[in-house]
């Protein structure tokens, strides 16, 4: 039994080694810092629903949901704004993360985690669904899956 498990794991590792990471699509040059006041003002001024995603390069679940957010932005980017907040993260690591996953939506940096505290968010990642004008519809704590993200966006668009 042990040999079977080890053999399978080695096979999977070898297969994985043959696969490269995602190609970088944008650079992280635009990763500007953001304060709580700016964050609130941006959401209040927004005329579109917004999906806010708090992430960090050191957060492993953030890596698993990053491709989903890119797909959601590609599908709903015309009707919904997406805003990523690199939280309590080194700038160079955040930029590398953006390049690695090709995050196509706007990202800002909150190095002290003030926005996370403002949202009373638990753990990382956190995804917040926000109505136009800044009212929060729902906050999802932890890694978000396809169904939960699609449901949140559909609720925003249906109520918008």
């Amino acid at each position, binding site marked *: 039994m042990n040999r079977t498990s080890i053999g399978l794991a080695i096979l999977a590792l070898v297969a994985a080694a043959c696969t490269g990471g995602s190609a970088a699509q944008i650079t992280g040059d635009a990763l500007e810092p953001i304060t709580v006041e700016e964050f609130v003002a941006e959401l209040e001024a927004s005329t579109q629903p917004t999906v806010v995603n708090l992430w960090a390069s050191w957060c492993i679940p953030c890596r698993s949901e990053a491709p989903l957010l890119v797909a959601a932005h590609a599908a709903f980017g015309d009707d919904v704004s997406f805003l990523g907040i690199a939280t309590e993260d080194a700038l160079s690591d955040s930029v590398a993360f953006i390049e690695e996953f090709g995050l196509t939506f706007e990202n800002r940096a909150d190095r002290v985690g003030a926005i996370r505290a403002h949202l009373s968010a638990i753990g990382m990642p956190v995804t917040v669904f926000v109505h136009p004008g800044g009212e929060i519809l729902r906050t999802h704590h932890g890694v978000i899956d396809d169904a939960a993200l699609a449901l949140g966006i559909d609720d925003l668009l*249906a109520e918008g």
Partner: protein
Amino acid sequence: MELTLLAAALTGVGGIWMTNKLLSPAVDRATDALIGAAAAGLIVGRLAAMVGAGVNPLTRPGDILILRGGVSTEFAALTALAVVGWIHRRQLPTALDHLAPAALAGLAGWHGGCLWRDACLGTVSDLPWAMTSTGTTITRHPVEIYAGLGMLLAALVVSRLIHRPWVAAGVGLAAAGAVRLATEPLRQSIVGGPTGWYWAGILVGVATALVGQRLTRTRPPGPSSIEMVPP
């Protein structure tokens, strides 16, 4: 507290308990097979999820242990099945037939886990049992509850077929694919469900059940496959 993880853990423990209860009287080394299948499934599923997310496990080996980062259910299930099949290769029909109802019940529990993560709902509906999602007045199909009930019903039906070699396993596989496929249009999704896998499950399951049914009819009365296995 992440109740999702608690629900997943309880479902896992319940699934192993039920499978063990069904398998132990029928095949040798049932517990070993289940633990080995679960471990191998988790590892391969996690590796597949990492590769799928563009993360190279060789450059970030520590990430393999962070199951919360995602596990590919398709690869995990196939690997677990392959391990059980390999360990019980001399009693394969018996093992798979006894595994089928427990696997379906486990899937029912997995779908029911949506209650702990506020993710049961799908497309908009005006039906009397439609439910509202948090913070809205929009009513929607509780699609994951439908899927959970479908799996539970399939588990009950399949549990009555376990003494017909290959039939329970085939019907179970086809039923799981059919339940997922039938509920797919009611789900909210950005990337879309793996409908190809569901169709493959249905086709393989139906073919397996038909072959099993034919074998059952043509087999002369005699000792069962359990009794034929040498000690």
